[in-house]
């Protein structure tokens, strides 16, 4: 009698087996992703560093050099791989588009959450979701046919340049920043608003002094997310920025970004060659920057969590 019970209890049941299997499968899925991420980081790092170790380019020269022409060797006998024009281009379009997008995004988010939540949910929510879903090549194409001629007509120059890149990126990151700002505003508890209104504050005072203050960490995260997206965007920017690896002299002079040089150059170089290695170094800079953006987002998130 007792031994029968013992047998039943010691035998692994079907449910327990399935549970083990489920745990195993989800752990494998997790490991696959972690391994992929590490593989990418290791690969890009080793490839990117070979410019400095195999081709003996000075890191400082790489980051501060103003001439990008990997086929030509300079007076020191080293290839001309100064990445400063591209690094500058990437940062300038990122910062300008974020500066442009932030007020629009916050305004839209306030309208959607505070002023007209019903209309916001019915009209603006689908519109922003649609904007996120449009492929970047479409944005680039519109930029090429509409923004570039418009910039040329208004600001002069060829129309290709940082300004056109900024406008295109502005439209591309706006939905990201907006929808994340909406989430940040939604997460401000209702009783904050009630507290301010019950003290006789107007709706605008409540929004400006209470809701926005409480949502600041979330808003900053939204902006940094938008910047990360702008920094990494390749195709649309490449189509409108002019792709001249020159230090930009004005907003309408042709320029380039890390990503645009990568997309135009990667198909025209031979794997393992100096020219190819130089491009990998640019990719490494991009990777490091996106890691930094991630770090900033996490730091802001933690800061916000403490003050709440």
């Amino acid at each position, binding site marked *: 009698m007792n031994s029968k019970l013992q047998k039943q209890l010691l035998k692994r049941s079907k449910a327990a087996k399935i549970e083990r299997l489920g745990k195993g499968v989800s752990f494998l899925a997790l490991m696959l992703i972690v391994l992929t991420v590490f593989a990418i980081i290791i690969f890009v790092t080793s490839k990117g560093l070979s410019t400095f170790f195999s081709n003996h380019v000075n890191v400082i020269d790489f980051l501060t050099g103003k001439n990008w022409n990997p086929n030509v060797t300079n007076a020191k006998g080293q290839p001309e791989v100064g990445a400063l024009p591209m690094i500058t281009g990437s940062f300038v379009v990122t910062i300008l588009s974020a500066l442009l997008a932030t007020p629009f995004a916050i305004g839209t988010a306030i309208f959607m959450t505070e002023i007209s939540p019903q209309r916001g949910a019915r009209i603006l929510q689908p519109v922003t979701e649609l904007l996120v879903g449009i492929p970047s090549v479409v944005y680039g194409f519109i930029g090429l046919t509409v923004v570039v001629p418009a910039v040329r007509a208004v600001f002069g120059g060829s129309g290709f340049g940082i300004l056109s890149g900024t406008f295109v990126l502005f439209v591309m990151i706006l939905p990201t920043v907006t929808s994340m700002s909406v989430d940040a505003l939604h997460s401000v508890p209702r009783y*904050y608003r009630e507290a301010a*209104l019950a*003290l*006789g504050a107007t709706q605008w*005072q409540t929004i400006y*002094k209470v809701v926005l203050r409480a949502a600041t960490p979330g808003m900053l995260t939204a902006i940094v997310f938008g910047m990360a997206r702008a920094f990494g965007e390749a195709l649309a920017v490449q189509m409108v920025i002019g792709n001249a690896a020159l230090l930009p002299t004005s907003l309408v002079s042709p320029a380039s970004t890390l990503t645009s040089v990568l997309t135009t150059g990667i198909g025209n170089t031979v794997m393992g060659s100096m020219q190819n290695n130089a491009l990998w170094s640019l990719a490494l800079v991009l990777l490091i920057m996106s890691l930094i953006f991630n770090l900033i987002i996490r730091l802001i998130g933690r800061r916000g969590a403490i003050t709440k």
Partner: protein
Amino acid sequence: MLINPASTHQDDLWLERHIVDPSQDNRQPIILETKQLHVYYGDNEAIYEGDLKFAEHQISALIGPSGSGKSTFLRSLNRMNDGVARVAGQILYRGVDINRPEIDVYEMRRRIGMVFQRPNPFSKSIYDNITFALKRRGVTDKKTLDEVVETSLKQAAIWDEVKDQLNKSALALSGGQQQRLCIARAIAVKPDILLLDEPASALDPVSTGKLEETLTALKSNYTIIIVTHNMQQAARISDYTAFFNMGRALEYDKTSQIFTSPKVQLTNNYVAGDFG
């Protein structure tokens, strides 16, 4: 005898009401009065004719089971239901109907303040919490602000506990302190009437006791209307008590009257603990 109000069919029981006018037996003038107040959430009517008069410098308690409409009624009194529910009828504040659309709700809410169920200080310093509303009204003089902070915190009986840490975050205070801070914040704009929506429901007994002392002390300067789930609390601090049931004020009388010899059968059942 146990009566379930939802299942009773005795119409006379429903019509049985007893509402007094506090100005009759007390020399204080009426400061707030509702006439034919109806509140609708969409198509659902939450309040049917709550006709009550509140006298100046009195504490009036609103009691009743959950869903009886007492909180909805209270929130209508300073238009906190705007945008949430439709409020029909008149709310006369010193004779002026404040339920008209042309009333400036922000100015009105300065005179009729509210403290909520859950302590809701802003994530700012204690000082900035108190001065928030004044600064929004353009008061910038440091001396005036300092004075208001001190008097409000003293009136709310929390000054001694926080006077050395006015620049500390209000969120670092205990729940009971936060709630008294919210009262101080509400009286910083010198309102006429203070509405409190179950202010002690999130507090422990010791904090509740302090809060009740605070309210009793505030009575000489303010008119207080308080919603409470706690009948002992109503009995301890209020002068008048209104019993709400299913969206209707059924009985409104002196608190001593309500708790010793209520005139309405349902009130009697409720205060005796038969339902609710």
